[in-house]
């Protein structure tokens, strides 16, 4: 069993009405976590040991521990969380609230990638800036 933390300063998340929206700025992907997935992510990000995340729930199914572990691994794969040294004392080691278990839902969105990702500057001339250079003349290109 492991402890987790946010993977880097490029990751941030918000807890909104029991849902988590988490974003990875350098990958340009954001995630919407609902149900148990939101509780699990928030607990792990706050430093609750994965072995104690089950205590955040009442009425959890028998396979809840396996689901929690699978989701933790998914969050690591998505580079939202990273495994941390469990000997380091976490900022919060106990669940503060108990939630009913609801089916975990993880949705990932890439539609902001174009806006969020850094792009190398190209096709810029010092003479015309800040205007973009004229597109090449199609007829000239054909010639």
């Amino acid at each position, binding site marked *: 069993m492991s402890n987790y933390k946010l993977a880097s300063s490029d990751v941030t998340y*918000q807890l*909104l009405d029991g849902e988590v929206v988490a*974003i990875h700025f350098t990958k340009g992907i*954001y995630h919407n976590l609902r149900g148990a997935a939101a509780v699990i992510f928030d607990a792990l990000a706050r430093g609750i040991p994965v072995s104690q995340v089950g205590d955040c729930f009442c009425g959890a199914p028998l396979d809840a521990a396996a689901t929690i572990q699978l989701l933790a691994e998914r969050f690591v794969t998505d580079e939202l969380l990273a495994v941390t040294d469990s000997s380091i004392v976490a900022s919060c080691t106990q669940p503060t609230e108990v939630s009913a278990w609801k089916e975990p839902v993880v949705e990932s969105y890439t539609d902001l990638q174009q806006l969020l990702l850094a792009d190398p*500057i190209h096709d810029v001339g010092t003479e015309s800036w800040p205007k973009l250079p004229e597109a090449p003349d199609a007829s000239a290109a054909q010639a």
Partner: protein
Amino acid sequence: MISSVPNTTPAAFFSAAWAQFDAAQGENWRDSLRVGGTNCLIEGKGHGMRQALLPALAHLKSDVSVAPQLHLRTWDGAETHGGLPPLPVIAGDAFEHGRIARLCSDSHLVIWEPHFSSVTLLDRIGRRAIYFATSAQALPYYETAAPLRALWHAWFSSQGALPVHGACVGRNGRALLLTAPAGSGKSTTALLALAAGFDYLADDWSLLQPRGGPFAHSLFNTAKLRPNNLHRFPALRERIHNFDRLDDEKATIFLQQHFPSQLRASAQLKAIVLPRVSGKPDTHFERTSSAAAWHALLKVTAQGVAGSGRELFTLLGELVRCAPVYTLHLGHQLDQVHRALEAILQDE
């Protein structure tokens, strides 16, 4: 291609650009605005940039004798024959949502909008800003309808407020933010509210301040409407600013010129409303989640504001937590819409 690379710092580039204003030709003009609680002095050269920027901001004009908290210099290249210092970037420099990373620092921002051929520069600590465009006349109508968005975002996001893509209407100092993707009935709802006598803060872009309120502030007095929706508002036809260009542009109306008594600079934000065209006769509303509002606001706002970045994510989270969220299911019976808005204002 890039041939020479001046070695410069963000502060030095800003100072060099600031000085270029003096070399620009044309009549010097000054206006003062009070935007979201900030007294802003706008100093410009040339008639074209004044015509491009000020109609949408005219309702925020204030006393020029008040000491400015932000000093903006603006000019264009075509009319004033002025320019900017050479572009001090190298191929491969990072370009993040309009920000030229190497020219940005904790205090300085350079935001390039290549499709408008315009650049916004901000010196936060020095409280100075620059807006330069290659040609004021060539700025698209949607830019002149909502000018300086990148500047407002850059300036206000450091103060805990942000421009978001949404209309804002209200009564008695309380306002509703209407936000939704294009085609969801946002502008129609706002104009129906205007026709019903509501106070009007915004059609498209509102300045929201989550902390200490929440408050909504007006940025632009513009209303935009798809031409195929004009039949719903016959009284607006003769007030359309760009009537001769409706084949390519949305109908644009500067409300300061026609409905000045209904415009409000600020109000307390009561709720966030997500309009949806239901296809049914009646209009009704229901509470929905903060996350739904966050999703509705994030993409439409990020797409519309160059330079918006991580602070947008954080401030949107603060915003949707501090006001209740409703879905407004818009029916065919348009006379029900303003009643639904009244009911939301009275809810709770």
